């Protein structure tokens, strides 16, 4: 009971989903604790609803007690669930900003980039949004943080050659 109340009160964006036109989930981020089973059910239902919509239709829809804001970029649907009193337009801007970030990071991003580097896509999303709130409004500083972290990762990896790792060096 208490936890469900906390869920109600918790952050604005409830979750973000990326899925393809064929209904394949490409990325999911939940900003409220949700049981695995419920997640699956919601994702399935929501994908059906969104995919059934015609291209000219409005980007917003009310679904259960949430407002769904989605936008299609090439073959990918970006879909966010926000609360009733939230601003749909800013959510649309959040989506667009995320796409811009992906685009900058991968260099004209395509669905495959996100499939094969899905952890990178998550890292970017995590730098941009935190707990459903916009963390940084500046594209530059988000990308900088990612690059720095990536650099750290490479430093971690690069000094150790395979041989070193094998303990042969």
């Amino acid at each position, binding site marked *: 009971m208490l936890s469900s109340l906390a869920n109600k009160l918790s952050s604005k964006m409830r979750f973000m989903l990326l899925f393809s036109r064929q209904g394949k989930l490409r990325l999911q981020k939940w900003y409220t604790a949700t049981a695995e089973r419920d997640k699956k059910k919601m994702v399935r239902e929501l994908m059906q609803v969104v995919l059934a919509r015609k291209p000219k239709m409005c980007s917003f829809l009310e679904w259960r007690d949430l407002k769904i804001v989605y936008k299609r970029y090439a073959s990918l649907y970006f879909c966010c669930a926000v609360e009733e009193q939230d*601003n749909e337009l800013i959510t649309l801007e959040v989506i667009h900003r995320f796409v811009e970030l992906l685009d900058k990071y991968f260099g004209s991003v395509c669905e495959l980039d996100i499939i094969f580097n899905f*952890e990178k896509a998550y890292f970017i999303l995590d730098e941009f949004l935190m707990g459903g709130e916009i963390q940084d409004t500046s594209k530059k500083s988000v990308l900088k943080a990612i690059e720095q972290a990536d650099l750290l990762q490479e430093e971690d990896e690069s000094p150790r050659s395979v041989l070193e790792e094998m*303990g042969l060096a």
Partner: protein
Amino acid sequence: MALKIVKGSIDRMFDKNLQDLVRGIRNHKEDEAKYISTCIDEIKQELKQDNIAVKSNAVCKLTYLQMLGYDVSWAAFNIVEVMSSSKFTYKRIGYLAASQCFHESTDVIMLTTNQIRKDLSSPNQYDTGVALTGLSCFVTPDLARDLANDIMTLMSHTKPYIRKKAVLIMYKVFLKYPESLRPAFPRMKEKLEDPDPGVQSAAVNVICELARRNPKNYLSLAPLFFKLMTSSTNNWVLIKIIKLFGALTPLEPRLGKKLIEPLTNLIHSTSAMSLLYECVNTVIAVVWLSVLKYLGLLAMSKILKTHPKSVQSHKDLILQCLDDKDESIRLRALDLLYGMVSKKNLMEIVKKLMLHVDKAEGTTYRDELLTKIIDICSQSNYQYITNFEWYISILVELTRLEGTRHGHLIASQMLDVAIRVKAIRAFAVAQMATLLDNAHLLTGNTQHSGICEVLYAAAWICGEFSEHLEDPMATLEAMLRPKVATLPGHIQAVYVQNAAKLFSTVLCGQEGAPADSKVAQETSQLLIDRLPVFVQSDNLEVQERASCILQLVKYIQKLQQKDVEVAEEVTALFAGELNPVAPKAQKKVPVPEGLDLDAWINEPPSGSESEDEGRKTKGKAVFAREESRHTKPRYTEVDEKELAKRREVRKAEQANNPFYIKASPSSQKVRTASSPNRQLVLWMPMSDQYVKLEEERRQKNKADRKKDKKKRREKGRQRRGDSGPESEEDITPAHMVDIVTEEMPENALPINSSLTSRCITDVCDIQGNLHDGSQVVVSVIFENKCDSFIKSMEFNVMDSLNSKLQRPEGAGPHDSLTVPFHLPPGISSEARFIFSVQSIVMPQKLKGTLTFIVKDSSTHEKLDFKLHFTCTSYLITTPCYSDAYAKLLESGDLKGSSLKLEGINQPFHHLLARICFHHHFSVVERIDSCASMYSRSIQGHHVCLLVKTADQTVSIDAKCDEPGLLRNVLDEIKLTFSQC
């Protein structure tokens, strides 16, 4: 041991990595489930190994599978292991997996507390970063309790990157562990003023979210947020703040008022749709209910024009708005009602309005209601009235209003209806007779009230249609009461004349029964007794008519005494029926054959030489006539074309002119007086060359204007009444703030048609007052363009929070100022009004009205206008020396901004002159295609410009100690150049 490591590494080389897994799944579309189950088996094997790289790879793959919907909860412990790796690469993967897979009931979370604490205090900010990010997804009440202190410390971390994340995650912590809120809040509040914009916006986010849940605890922060709202340019932050205010306002209604201005500013200035939406949303939700109503009604009136049906269904709602406290809303609602009446609902609507009339005792609003009722009923030739008896009784009811100044209006309606609707006459006459009988009620204590005008109509109707009277004698008696002599002259005159008409009717009736010749004589005696009062009247008309009729009656009495039947002859005096003529009736009368309306009756006066020549060559009359017949139509044709062309040009000018008020649908013609090419310079301190330049321009413009005038005069001769003489100020002020000329709409106040409706224009110029940083002087030139005397002009402006019209002491904030002069026809005169302005950072528009009385009609008329205070008008041309200028720039107090203008192909010195002239700058220094310019605001802000030009592109780098002001000035400069 070494062998184990070697084995692990070699295995790893053959392990599937994430990419292989993804590829594999894509290649096994048919048996995906089977393929994945083998993969999961592999992963299980990998997880058993000690090598952390292998484990991490396995966890990464699991995260992917988890997304595909596979259960990976069994690997929770392995995820914790990877999280605990000292290597960032693995740690990152571990936290990602945790954030995707963990939830509150994952029991291994308990084991993570110490690891997370260690990561939070790691010297590497990215370790801390991933820990915070992960935590934001799976924080539990226990974690929140145990780590609250650590996170709170991080809010003051040296790196903004960490501060930002810590601030955001604090919100989650508050939710899971509310006790942490109290100790952490002061620090959170501090973060609202963090130097880093990211941290600041994070803090705004968190506090706004908290405040939305429980607004009353956050009221004390309102001033701080208000400051942020007016200073922030970050849309994301602004949206949050506006939302917050939306939550706060119901608790503190005074906030709503304060918000009006910043919100309107935002609505006007923002280009971000989402922000606009949020502003409007907030306005709708709580802030400004009345404004919403107003806007709603305004929008409805727009919809009404295109979709009348959809508005009509909201009739009740609109009628409710008539009960609103706010007069402007009521007036708006009235406007709407006007457009939405139909035959069906007219009576109902008017009935409601009549109720309001009763309630609105003693206000000007009541007068407005009254005119509106009449407008509504009489529109499009009484199109919606199905029952004229009803209308007459409404009019009669309206006469009960004391102190209205629209008696004349009611009277003209009564006359109009009685004359034009024959069927109604009997009813109308009966009503009018009662009115006359009760005249003392109308005139009672308000001697000069306009309502007695109604008696004018009543007397005339009773007289003219006296055959319908039931008891003409009684009415005659009523019309000749001594009290009538106190009525205004023109009404008395009508009384006397119509008494005579009635007399004739009475005679007719009485002589029908010859026995009563005595009664007839008594009637004559009544007139002879009562008329002398009128003969002594000081009104010529009354006197003349009275004495004339008195003599006539005396003569009649003589005849009566000789028993001569006079009734028929007396009736002959007033024989013939008056019939209404439709305005277009003249057109239906065919032009008699042989009548040439275009032909000169007399020879035209010899006007120009060319005509003289023409006459000289008029040797053969036949040719001359032919010629004239040909030239005439051709001339008008050219003229028509020319007119159309000119109209086009004018429209284009108007479209480009920012100060031009677009014609509202109700006003038919609006004149522009500030076409860019006609603007002239008042005064500019500039180096010689610019003065010269200006001189040239002025000359040229004068020449242009002369041409213009000439053309116009021609046009005026061609089509008189189409356009009156334009105002011809020789020097138009540099700042045409607003030029307003509105014609009265045809269907609005029915003013005397002989009055030219275009009555007055005003042109104004706004100048800052150098000596007082908060004062702005607005000079308004009023010009009377009609041919009647205009008096009692009153000038009023709706104050905004920022700008207020200075009124004399003791005057209320909405009182209007009397313009200290009258205007004879064709005269213009200038009045100055002082405004106090608080902030000069934003441009402002103020709405105002000018009311005045046109002599001869004695009705008040109204002219709406807008005053546009541009930021430029707050600048004052101030010369500056180059060394002082350099010092100013060096001081570093100024904030910069820049502007690029493309496609400018005027010479550089023209460009500079333009900036000097339109925006009050002075040139400090000029080197080739580069110049520095300076100006100062009335509040002492320095504004510096560096203007450079290269191939049609002009770049302006500007600096000012007030970025808001600078931005607006630059926008205005841009606008100036976009017009040329």
